[in-house]
C-alpha cells in the first residue's frame, strides 16, 4: 500500500515535468503544424546550462531562469533560420529537427562530458517530508508537483481567458483565416514558440535536479513527451495536462510492477487508445 502511494506521487511528479515539456510541443504544433523533435535536446541543453549557472552562482532559481532563457534564444534561431525556410513538409521538419537534436547532443557531450550529472537544488528543497502513515518522501518532488500545477493553471488561464490566448486558439482552428483577419500569425508564433522553448529549458533544469543529465537523456524524455501529446491529442493544452499525468503514472507503475516491460506498459495503452481514437483524447482532426 505504501508503495502504491509512493509510486503515485512519483508518477505525478514525473507528469509535472512532462507537462512542462509537452505543453510547448503541443501548442507550437497546434498553431503552426510544426513538428519539432529537438524539444528533448532543448530540455537537455537547458538542464546543462542551468547546471553551470547553479554551480557558478549557487542559486537554483537563477539556474531555472537562465536555462529557460538560453533555450529561448536557441529555439528562436532554429525556428527562424532552419525550420521556416523548409516550409510545411512534416517529414523534412522531422529529419531536420532530429539532426538539430543530434548536433545539440554532441555539443553538450563536448562541453559537459558523458557523466551522469545532477543539478544542486536550494537548501529548502532538500530533505524529506513526512506524510501521514510515516511515509517519507523527497521534498523536491512535492515542490515539482506544485510547480507543475502552477504552470498548468497559468498556461490554462493564458490560453482560455486572455485575448492573445484566443488568437492562438483561433490559429489552431484555422490559421489562414486568422491571417486574413489582419493578424500576423508568424509573429504570434514567435511568441508561442519562445514560451514553449522557455518551458523546455526550465523542464531541463527542474528535471536535472532529480533525474540526471547525461547523453541520451534527451531521447528518453522526448519519447515520453511524444507519448503524452499522442495520448492527449496534438494541439490540445488539456490533452497535455491529462496525458502528462497518465504517462507519469504509467511510467512509475510500469517500472515498479513490470520493470522488464516498462516500455510496453507505456506504448501498449497508447496503441489501444489510437485504435479507438486516432486523434488522442482531446485532439481534433487536422
Amino acid at each position, binding site marked *: 500500500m505504501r508503495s502504491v502511494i509512493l509510486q503515485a506521487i512519483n508518477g505525478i511528479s514525473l507528469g509535472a515535468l512532462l507537462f512542462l515539456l509537452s505543453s510547448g510541443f503541443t501548442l507550437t504544433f497546434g498553431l503552426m503544424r510544426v513538428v519539432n523533435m529537438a524539444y528533448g535536446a532543448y530540455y537537455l541543453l537547458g538542464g546543462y546550462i542551468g547546471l553551470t549557472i547553479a554551480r557558478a552562482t549557487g542559486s537554483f532559481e537563477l539556474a531555472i531562469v537562465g536555462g529557460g532563457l538560453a533555450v529561448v534564444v536557441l529555439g528562436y534561431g532554429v525556428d527562424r533560420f532552419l525550420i521556416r525556410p523548409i516550409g510545411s513538409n512534416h517529414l523534412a521538419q522531422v529529419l531536420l529537427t532530429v539532426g538539430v537534436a543530434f548536433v545539440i547532443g554532441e555539443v553538450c557531450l563536448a562541453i559537459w562530458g558523458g557523466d551522469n550529472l545532477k543539478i544542486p537544488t536550494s537548501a529548502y528543497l532538500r530533505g524529506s517530508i513526512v506524510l501521514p502513515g510515516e511515509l517519507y518522501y523527497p521534498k523536491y518532488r512535492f515542490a515539482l508537483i506544485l510547480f507543475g500545477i502552477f504552470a498548468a493553471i497559468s498556461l490554462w488561464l493564458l490560453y482560455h481567458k486572455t*485575448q*492573445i490566448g*484566443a*488568437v492562438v*486558439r*483561433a490559429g*489552431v*482552428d*484555422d490559421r*489562414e*483565416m*486568422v*491571417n*486574413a*483577419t*489582419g*493578424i*500576423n*500569425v508568424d*509573429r*504570434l508564433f514567435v511568441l508561442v514558440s519562445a514560451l514553449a522553448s522557455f518551458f523546455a529549458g526550465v523542464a531541463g533544469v527542474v528535471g536535472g535536479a532529480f533525474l540526471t543529465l547525461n547523453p541520451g537523456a534527451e531521447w528518453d524524455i522526448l519519447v515520453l513527451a511524444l507519448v503524452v501529446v499522442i495520448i492527449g491529442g496534438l494541439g490540445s493544452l488539456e490533452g497535455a495536462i491529462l496525458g502528462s499525468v497518465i504517462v507519469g503514472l504509467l511510467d512509475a507503475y510500469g517500472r515498479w510492477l513490470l520493470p522488464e516491460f516498462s516500455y510496453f506498459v507505456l506504448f501498449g495503452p497508447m496503441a489501444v487508445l489510437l485504435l479507438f481514437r486516432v486523434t488522442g483524447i482531446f485532439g481534433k482532426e487536422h
Partner: protein
Amino acid sequence: MATSEALLAVREIHTYYGDSYVLNGLSLELAAGRIVVILGRNGMGKTTLIRSIAGLTPPRRGEVTFAGQSLIGKPPYAIAQSGIAIVPQGRRIFKSLTVRENLTLPTSALAGRQRARHDSRKHWDLAGVLAEFPQLAERMDNTGGALSGGEQQMLAIGRALMANPALILMDEPSEGLSPKLVQKVEEIMHGLRAHGHSILLVEQNLALAMAVADSIYVISSGQFVFHGTPDELSRNAGILDSHLGVSAARSH
C-alpha cells in the same frame, strides 16, 4: 467609371493552384460604396478571385490596387490591415472560440491599429454589430461550432464588420441557407451599402446577385464573359443560358 476613382482595381491577374491555371487575365473595378457581384458556376474561379485579392493565393502576374496602393506581394494580414475583410466560403468561423471571442478577434492588438477611420462610413463596434445581429447577442458565450448555419453566417459577417473594413469580400454567403435567410443576407447587404461599405460578392445565386448588384461580372473558366448592370444581364439570354444555366424566361 474612371480608373482613378476605383477603390479596388484588378488588372490582368493570372492565378494558379500549383500547376493548374485558374484565373487567366481577369480585370475588374469596384467604385467606393458599390456592390459588385461575380456570378458563375462552381469551379469557375470565383473563390480563387477572392483569395487572389486577399493575398491567400497570390496571383503570379497582374496588378491589384486598393485605395491607390498595390496589394501585390503583401501578406494576407497586411492586406486585411489596409482595410479589406473577408467573409469566406463555408463561413470559417473559429469553432472553438466563443461568439464574443470570434467577434473581438479582429480588434486584438495583434491585428494592427493603423486602420484609418473613414467618416463617410459607419464605425462598427461590438454593440453596433450586436444591434445588427440580435440573435448573436443571445449566444455570446456559446462556441462558434455550436451555432446554426445561419447564425454562423451572421457571425462571419459580424466578424468582418468588427475590422471596420472599407471593402468586404463575400464568398457565397447564401450557400446552404434557407430562402428566408438568403432574404436576410440580401437585406444586410443593402444595409451595408447604405452605411457606406463597398462589397465584392461572388455568388451562384442569380436572384440574390440581381437584387443587390450595382454591376455584375459573369465568370467562366477563369475569364469574364460578361460585364454590365443587372438589367443588361437579364436581357442577355445567351449568357444566362450558356454560363449560368438558367433560361432567360426563368430569370424574370
